[in-house]
């Protein structure tokens, strides 16, 4: 008789499972339920990008690529980083194509974190950073962010968290789940704290093109003095509605990228080749698609913000990604209680804010990667629900 428990490592056994799925499992059983939880675009991958993949398949371009990715793709990525952010990367040694942004994050953390090293992780944020840190033997150090600061990372919080063991700072902006954006001047304040340290920055910029502020998208690596200490992670999932293609990339100093590539090589071999051909087309001819999707998201974002304002539900204005993060603390004891009750009574499934870290308590995440009609229905139910509550 196998004793599987004895086989599992303590780290794997102790990884926290997500408690979110239960809301959506319940929602799926309610025929009239409305879900607002999905974190992926509702748009299809633009046709010309799909066509490029079909062409690649027709030509039989289905073999392994080089480990770091097809050179034409790495060259396009380098051109994109220069064109959009004035950042120069050598496609030969400073760009690695990965299986989505998530693999890049994992490989970077595993490249620099060993037992006892500390990783600074702003929260609320995407749920993978802390578990991946733990799997690498490191210690996650949580940096809370607050509604009063627009969920931006405050420099004093970073400063107070730095110890001799700190090796890596995660910079997850534009942010999932809050939609918060860090702008040039915000980054400069963080840069001032990091200036005389040996801390590397992993800037997760997967939502960077979904920016609704007046200023152009700005990468942390553009911040004065930060280029050499930053690895930018980006991908095609959110920008070009290519979630299922599993294709992302990382750009950074070659000394680190060499190790990222080694881990990628042993763990993955290479990103899916057909997806890489599609990604080349996306970068070459996809700017109009980005604008089209960004404008549609912006319409929905403002629709939701206006709706919350008219219902007197506090909701800070998110300037990026495709989420709003309203404060529901006036309506329930905690986020989970709200989500349970809201699902039970109004048949709407949303994600409790504390799923993204303790500082998300009192909030819910609403994705607007849904049609305006869908959002209107949901808002209607929200309004009726809170009227009954008060």
């Amino acid at each position, binding site marked *: 008789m196998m004793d599987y428990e004895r086989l599992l490592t303590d780290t794997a056994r102790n990884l926290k499972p997500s408690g*979110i799925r239960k809301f959506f499992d319940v929602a799926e059983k309610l025929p009239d339920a409305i879900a607002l*939880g*999905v*974190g992926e675009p509702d748009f299809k991958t633009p046709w010309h990008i799909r066509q490029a993949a079909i062409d690649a398949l027709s030509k039989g371009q289905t073999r392994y690529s080089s480990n770091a990715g097809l050179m034409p793709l790495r060259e396009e990525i380098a051109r994109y980083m220069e064109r959009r952010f004035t950042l120069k990367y050598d496609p030969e040694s400073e760009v690695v194509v990965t299986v989505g942004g998530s693999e890049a994050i994992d490989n970077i953390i595993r490249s620099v974190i060993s037992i006892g090293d500390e990783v600074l992780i702003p929260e609320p944020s995407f*749920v993978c950073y802390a578990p991946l840190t733990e799997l690498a033997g490191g210690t996650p150090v949580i940096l809370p962010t607050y509604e009063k600061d627009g969920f931006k990372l405050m420099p004093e919080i970073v400063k107070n968290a730095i110890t001799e063991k700190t090796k890596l700072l995660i910079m997850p902006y534009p942010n999932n789940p809050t939609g918060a954006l860090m702008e040039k001047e915000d980054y400069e304040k963080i840069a001032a704290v990091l200036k005389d340290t040996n801390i590397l920055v992993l800037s997760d910029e997967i939502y960077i093109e979904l920016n609704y502020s007046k200023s152009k998208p700005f990468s942390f690596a553009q911040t004065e003095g930060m280029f050499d200490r930053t690895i930018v992670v980006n991908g095609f999932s959110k920008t070009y509605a290519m979630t299922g293609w599993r294709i992302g990339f990382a750009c950074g100093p070659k000394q680190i990228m060499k190790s990222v590539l080694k881990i990628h090589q042993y763990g993955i071999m290479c990103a899916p080749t057909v997806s890489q051909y599609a990604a080349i087309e996306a970068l070459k001819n996809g700017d109009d698609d980005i604008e089209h999707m960004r404008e549609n998201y*912006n*319409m929905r*974002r403002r629709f939701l913000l206006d709706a919350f304002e008219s219902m007197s539900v506090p909701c800070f204005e998110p300037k990026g990604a495709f989420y709003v993060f309203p404060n529901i603390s006036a309506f329930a004891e905690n986020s989970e209680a709200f989500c349970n009750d809201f699902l039970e009574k109004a048949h709407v499934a949303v994600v409790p804010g504390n799923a993204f870290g303790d500082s998300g308590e009192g909030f819910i995440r609403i994705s607007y990667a849904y049609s305006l009609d869908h959002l209107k229905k949901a808002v209607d139910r929200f309004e009726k629900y809170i009227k009954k509550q008060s």
Partner: protein
Amino acid sequence: MNIKEKVLRFLETDCRYTAKNIADAIDATEQEVVDVIAGCIDDGTILGYKALVNWDKTDREYVSAMIEIKVQPEKGEGFDSVARKICAFEEVVSVFLMSGGFDLTVMLEGKSMREVALFVVEKLAVIDGVTGTATHFVLNKYKDKGIIFDEREKDTRVMTEF
């Protein structure tokens, strides 16, 4: 793309979008969008707002047909005079001047194949300048105005760990 093109693109996608919705999307003011729409209506850029109906979902008896028409062009008028006469019939849904082996494509709707056939024979074929017609009945509509019929897409996205 200028503001006019952007507004038109949104309305072409879904004419239920309000001026406020479009203004929100493109970072314009609501008044700017209202003015663009009013200008487009005035100058005939926007000609109407219609729902795209799949009549197969109803009990309505109807039939659609595409008629290829050969026309002897008139001096100084070309095909315009004949095309305008055809446009005047209420049964005619659309009229296009074509390149290739015939001159006009006319889309028609009627209650039955017989009604459409009679219309072609009695109303179109007899117009001065029309030298030939070929009638093709629509058997099934798969896609129209960019919308695929009978394919109400379900949201197949699953709840991943975000």
